[in-house]
């Protein structure tokens, strides 16, 4: 089973990397870009077939280590 975790800075927390990339895209002429957010994707291979258990476990991993919930939000996708 594969868990895909996406971690992004919270809405309202300024993302300096996203802002820099946005400026760069602007200067390349990509005028339609309204906002850029840069985060990270963490892919976990899990040794279980129990989707519910996997989801609960990955949520705990996010809360304790993978995300800093003071500044970051995360999403979990399990396949």
């Amino acid at each position, binding site marked *: 089973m594969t868990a895909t975790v996406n971690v992004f*800075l919270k809405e309202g*927390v300024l993302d*300096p*990397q996203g802002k*820099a990339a946005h400026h760069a895209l602007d200067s390349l002429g990509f005028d339609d870009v309204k906002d850029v957010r840069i985060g990270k994707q963490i892919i976990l291979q899990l040794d279980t077939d129990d989707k519910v258990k996997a989801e609960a476990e990955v949520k705990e991993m996010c809360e304790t*280590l993978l995300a*800093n919930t*003071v*500044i970051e939000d995360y999403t979990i996708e399990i396949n």
Partner: protein
Amino acid sequence: MKVAVLRFPGTNCEFDTEYAFEKLGHTTELIWHEEAKLPEDIDLVVIPGGFSYGDYLRSGSIARFSPVMKAVKIYADNGGKVLGICNGFQILTEAGLLPGALKRNNNLHFISKHQNLCVINNNNAFLNQCTKGEVLNIPIAHADGNYYIDEEGFKKLEDNGQILLRYSDEKGNPVVINGSVTSIAGVCNEAKNVFGLMPHPERALEAILGSEDGIRMLKGFEA
């Protein structure tokens, strides 16, 4: 005074920190991160700067789970004094021993230079040798020093006198260095026994090297 200086894989300011406290006449002991206990006769724990675990995932996020950090948490919960410098500050926020978090600098640069700091609160075990509003000249060297805290948390910091230092000009007016909320450079916890700052007082001990303002900061712990 006996000072425990923690050491993680990637820490690189432990010897400067030892030098600083020994110059002030104290004894120091390096504590490897795998130690589950702190020496019993210590007066202060310092988490020095560096790049623990290569700053992987987030600065300080992996070091906080080291065995020694469990001991530091118990030590701090019992009123023991803890100082985190730079990466040490990041570790303390990740560990929840200090409020807020440190993000990438707004300009994405690694900023390494001497910086003026304004003393905001001196009614604590750290900055008691400094005066309120005083301007100190201390080196900074960091990429992730952009202090973030939400509005509610910020109000608590302000009301409890937990803001220690702000980046400032030579007159003490706040300046934007890395994007920190209200230019905060250092904070303490509510009980005022855990301190964190991005600047490096241990690098400001000799006038010939640019500043000796760090002496008064570190001397605060002697009181």
